[in-house]
């Protein structure tokens, strides 16, 4: 991949993020409710016209839309995502405070999902009909499970009935197990479906057959040869997976009453705290787009076939 191509990709990413920022700005402008009212305590409060006017001047709502847009873009470039209407705290600061918890959760879930997907694939793909059907049925089931319900079922079974794990985590590793598993299992089902097809076709490839002809054990062929090929298409989905984990973390954090970006987002949606809603969304979009870019660049290096396929 030449430097020029990398630059072109980078420009594409910046363009997409600029578009996303513009789109969210337009949505904010189309809000049917008055942001000044929200800032002064929401629909229930009765601020005086003077108070409303003062807030409009303070937040710049009285300025021309184009000027507001340029100030908004300028703020984003400086890492300033605006100030929360409700918490009266910079959005970037709120994200910074909550990011650690959500990042721990999503990273653990991503690793967990891969472990589960690889184990299920190694054990069941390209085996007898019954075993393969069992594995693929399990993956379909996992992929269809809604996170909020899976979370509750895991809570009931492992926390309330078996008492193996705490109901509400105290920040320790035990409290992370159930939320991470809730995020990981449906993703594992999805990744497994992708990996399984690839794995089966890799096991039919000449290199697998010749490895077996050389006297390599079945497990050796699976582990050393087929798995590498099977994992690749799934790994190229890692950027997508990370983005989807960040957004489903919203639900999981609500189920387990875990602090994090998702909780902040749901509270902000309920109270129409648009700077926080938009800020968190743009932040997640940035992670998503950048992760996709890195995955594309990295895999072009690892697998030359992807390079020729893409161009």
């Amino acid at each position, binding site marked *: 991949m030449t430097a020029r191509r990398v630059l072109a990709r980078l420009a594409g990413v910046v363009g*997409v993020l600029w578009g996303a920022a513009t789109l969210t700005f337009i949505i904010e402008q189309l809000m049917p409710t008055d942001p000044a009212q929200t800032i002064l305590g929401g629909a229930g409060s009765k601020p005086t016209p003077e108070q409303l006017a003062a807030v409009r001047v303070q937040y710049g709502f009285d300025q021309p839309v184009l000027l507001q847009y340029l100030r908004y873009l300028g703020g984003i470039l400086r890492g300033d995502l605006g100030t929360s209407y409700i918490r009266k705290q910079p959005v970037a600061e709120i994200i910074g405070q909550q990011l650690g918890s959500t990042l721990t959760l999503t990273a653990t879930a991503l690793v967990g999902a891969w472990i589960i997907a690889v184990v299920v694939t190694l054990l069941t793909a390209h085996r007898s009909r019954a075993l393969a059907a069992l594995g693929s049925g399990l993956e379909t089931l996992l992929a269809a499970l*809604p996170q909020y319900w899976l979370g*509750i079922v895991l*809570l009931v079974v492992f926390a309330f009935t078996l008492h193996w794990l705490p109901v509400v985590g105290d920040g320790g590793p035990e409290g992370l197990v159930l939320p991470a598993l809730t995020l990981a299992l449906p993703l594992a089902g999805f990744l497994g479906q992708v990996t399984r097809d690839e794995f089966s076709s890799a096991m039919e490839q000449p290199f697998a057959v010749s490895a077996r002809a050389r006297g390599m054990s079945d497990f050796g062929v699976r582990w050393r040869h087929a798995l590498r090929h099977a994992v690749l298409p799934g790994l190229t989905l890692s950027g997508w997976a990370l983005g989807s984990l960040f957004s489903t973390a919203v639900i999981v954090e609500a189920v387990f009453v875990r602090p994090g970006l998702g909780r902040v987002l749901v509270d902000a949606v*309920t109270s129409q705290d648009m700077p926080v809603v938009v800020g968190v969304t743009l932040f997640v979009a940035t992670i*998503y787009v950048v992760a996709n870019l890195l995955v594309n660049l990295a895999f072009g290096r690892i697998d030359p076939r992807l390079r020729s396929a893409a161009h």
Partner: protein
Amino acid sequence: MTVNVAEGLVTRTALAAPKAKSGIAFRPAVWLSAVFLLLVVAWAVVPDAFTSESPFDTDVDAAIQAPSLQYWFGTDASGRDIYTRVVFGARSSLLIGVGATALALVAAILFGFAAGLGGRLTDGAVSRFLEVVLALPGLLLALIFIAMLGPGVATEILAVAIGSAAGYAWMVRGQVIAVRNSGYVHAATALGHTRSRIIVRHVFPNAMRPLVVLATMGVGQSIVWASSLSFLGLGVAPPAPEWGAMLDAGRDFVSTAWWLELFPGLAIVGCTLAVTVLGRHLQQRIEGRLA
């Protein structure tokens, strides 16, 4: 290009013929899914035929009862019958799921066809727009619209539709471009058919066929999303029987009354699974017919 397609078709016919046959043979999972979905549709259309209770009738003496012969799925904190509420919940869950998917598909077809058939400029503009929307994860996009319009059923349908439309539109665009460059469209052009006739007779039906599968599976996805939003307290409001909202209401009693969470959840999982199994089956049938 044309040679490759022809070769592909030949090998596909040779390989796929026996597969397609076994696809039509008896498959318990497919039948089970169809029966379950028919049941849910019947719940949605004539809920009174399945239960004599009302989903809103409270009975303080019968609060938090475990499943029994009288209360098949148990009762909730206000003594409402969970079975009755699950049956009545089918209507709003299905309406939201089907409505959101239909709305998303209509938008996707408009955008996808505009991009696929329009000139370079239109395609460029629509594609860039779709890329931007796709950069925002669907659930977050839905949340933005709920924040903007306030929670409610209509908002929920719209939000779920907007959250999934861009992904569909991208697939429709790809499909239209593939069909436009196929051998039979080139042949029709060479025969002198008009552009509009080719679009109506060839491009539209052939580009739409894979969408049947997409739409089927999309309904399952929409039901899950919509119930997730209700679960977060951002969709259907609590007293109404809706599966996601029921799960949210039952959360406070999860340590004692597991049935409040089990049955509405099973209904959602059952729908998603059934729709996925049927969608896959349809896909195989359609691919078999193409070969």
